[in-house]
């Protein structure tokens, strides 16, 4: 893929972007605690990568490079923010916590896979699953809102989990 980038093939960029954008944005979000800022940081990185593609030397894997760059950009962003003392106090524990990049990448990739599997669920199943695990509604509340039986909700959620277990090999 790096070769594709260096030759400036635009589709290589699109592939790269689509493969890494979401997990990198979520990763950035875990530092800056603001999704829009996270998106901006990752978008800036991709534009930078494009501009520098000719001279870019990546000594590690592309993946580690991307995650490392996002982390550096996030830490820089936070450093700038620390001018305000209040933020400083809030951010400090976050910056000090020793984070193992490898672990974080693995965790992130897993989450990304989960999201991709969820995307492939049948629409109704997906909707119920999101209401349950993202919105945090109880099965009873979901049943009420969708005007279906609580039993159906339970079945759909266990189906979703079953698919996830299969696809993610748990």
């Amino acid at each position, binding site marked *: 893929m790096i070769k594709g980038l260096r030759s400036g093939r635009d589709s290589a960029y699109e592939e790269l*972007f689509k493969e890494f*954008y979401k997990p990198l944005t*979520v990763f950035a979000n875990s530092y800056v605690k603001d*999704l829009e800022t996270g998106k901006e940081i990752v978008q800036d990185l991709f534009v930078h990568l494009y501009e520098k593609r000719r001279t870019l030397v990546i000594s590690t894997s592309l993946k580690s490079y991307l995650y490392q760059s996002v982390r550096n950009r996030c830490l820089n962003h936070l450093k700038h923010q620390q001018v305000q003392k209040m933020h400083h106090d809030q951010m400090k524990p976050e910056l000090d916590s020793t984070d193992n990049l490898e672990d974080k990448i693995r965790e992130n990739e*897993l*989450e990304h896979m989960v999201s991709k599997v969820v995307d492939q669920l049948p629409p109704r199943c997906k909707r119920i699953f*999101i209401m349950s695990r993202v919105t945090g509604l109880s099965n009873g509340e979901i049943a009420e809102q969708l005007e279906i039986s609580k039993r159906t909700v339970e079945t759909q959620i266990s189906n979703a989990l079953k698919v*996830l277990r299969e696809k993610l090999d748990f």
Partner: protein
Amino acid sequence: MKPKENFEEHLFKNLGTYQSIDIEEDWQKVRKRMTQEKSIRLHPFWRTAAAVILLLGVGFIAQKYLAPSPDMIAVLSGEQMKHVLLPDGSMVTLNRQAELVYPEKFNRKKRELKLRGEAFFEVVSNPSLPFIVDVNEKAQVKVLGTSFNISQDQNRESISIQVVDGKVAFSSLEGSDEIILVKDEQATLRADGITLDDRMDRNSMSWKTGVLFFENTDIEEVLKQLQAHYEIEIVLHQSVPDNLSFTSTLDKQELESVLDEISLVLGLDYSYENEKVVFTLSE
């Protein structure tokens, strides 16, 4: 892998965030920014050319072209002014809608660039390495180390050079005209050749410097320049006499403060009407 009991807790923490990101929308944003700065590789052409010559058996020419020829970089400024740092440390500021093509590395004899549109150049002095700009494939500007501005009329029919510092040779690529310009001089290339202008139009650099000069300038002309600089339509109400003139140096001023100043000096009032500024005679 995490132990099974952590399955849910760990994996669904960010599911909502993942689901909320619109990857297509954001890809379009990034793609748009990518196309703002697009580089062109020219050297595969030269490689082919060199190969053809080699086949013809003209070895010594082939040798010349087979030497690694540098990548050309093209910078398009698009909707925004853009600063470009050249390989020799010279700085070019492109006005909007301009294009600059230059090699990733200058060769050992001269620094050659191609420009379309308007730009301000601050050239690092190097007498042994002339700095040559081809403008619109019509004119050529040659310098040894100086700062100057290249401007054009709206229809891009004429090309002007304003020299801020140093010495510049300005020539037509078609004719044999050449003129040497020094500090504070301006020359213009039109269809009939190059002429040295009576005075330098300092305002043609205002996009770069942010400074506008007016000295007993007709109000109509002042408004014309302000319109171009601030990109807003400014008109005179019929109540305003058209023989007014204005003198001032506006140094990076906000539009509001400029309008206030003109109103105060000329005894006018202004108001916004349909995104236009209208000057009326003060009551």
